[in-house]
């Protein structure tokens, strides 16, 4: 199992930004609805349209015969909050398509650390959670999957 300097959900956050599905949050900035800042672990009250990544339970998928290393896929959740259902669905769908079609041995650099994302697998359907709260107009969607990520430097 690889040792990672950043949590998988943090790596995923930068992956989404590099795939242009969202932007890096800037403290105090007033975001446009199309900015889609990507947060990790904590979903702030504003802006309406935002993406948050979380770590979830992963799965062990066998062992490499030569080295004995256990191949572990780390789990993650992407949570999309949007001003309305259509906007949220479109964004969640775009993320799903982007991760499914564009991630195949993708290199990613965070600060002075480099990661190799081998694949994203076992992606489920987009789950619509409905409104954020009974009085809110904002809709929530989640996507769950696992990924194989390796730190290369």
């Amino acid at each position, binding site marked *: 199992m690889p040792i990672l300097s950043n949590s998988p959900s943090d790596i995923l956050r930068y992956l989404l930004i590099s795939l242009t599905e969202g932007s890096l949050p800037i403290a105090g900035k007033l975001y446009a609805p199309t900015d889609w800042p990507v947060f990790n672990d904590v979903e702030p009250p504003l802006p309406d349209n935002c993406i948050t990544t*979380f770590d979830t339970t992963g799965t062990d998928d066998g062992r490499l015969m030569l080295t004995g290393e256990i191949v572990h896929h780390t789990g993650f959740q992407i949570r999309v909050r949007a001003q309305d259902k259509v906007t949220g669905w479109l964004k969640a769908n775009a993320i799903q398509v982007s991760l499914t079609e564009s991630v195949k041995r993708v290199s990613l650099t965070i600060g002075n650390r480099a990661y190799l994302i081998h694949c994203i697998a076992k992606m489920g359907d987009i789950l619509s959670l409905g409104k954020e709260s009974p009085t809110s107009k904002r809709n929530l969607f989640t996507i769950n999957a696992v990924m194989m990520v390796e730190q290369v430097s």
Partner: protein
Amino acid sequence: MKIEGVSRVIEALEARIAQAIKSSKASVTVGYTQNYAIFVHEDLVAHHTVGQAKFLEQPARMHQDKFRKIVEDSLRRKLTMSQALLLAGLALQRESQLLVPIDTGALKASAFTRVDII
């Protein structure tokens, strides 16, 4: 040398293969019937005094080997695939109900394991 009855043996084997294919297509669903179950399951931000989010997905992933062993042992005991999967599904339901958040208890009580007829 003449061998008789080969066609009957082949027919019997084909019938067994058809039965095995039918049996192996069994599936079992484990879930919760409360309509807010998915919200509680997926909301990783919410704090729960008892239980946690991902109360079904986490044990399903963590105990994969255990469930696989239940199915293997059951098939070895000549149970059908449906029965084997049902036993594994009930084990998952038990593990899940240990993690499900409890407020009124309605969510925990809505857990079910269902054999799907294909």
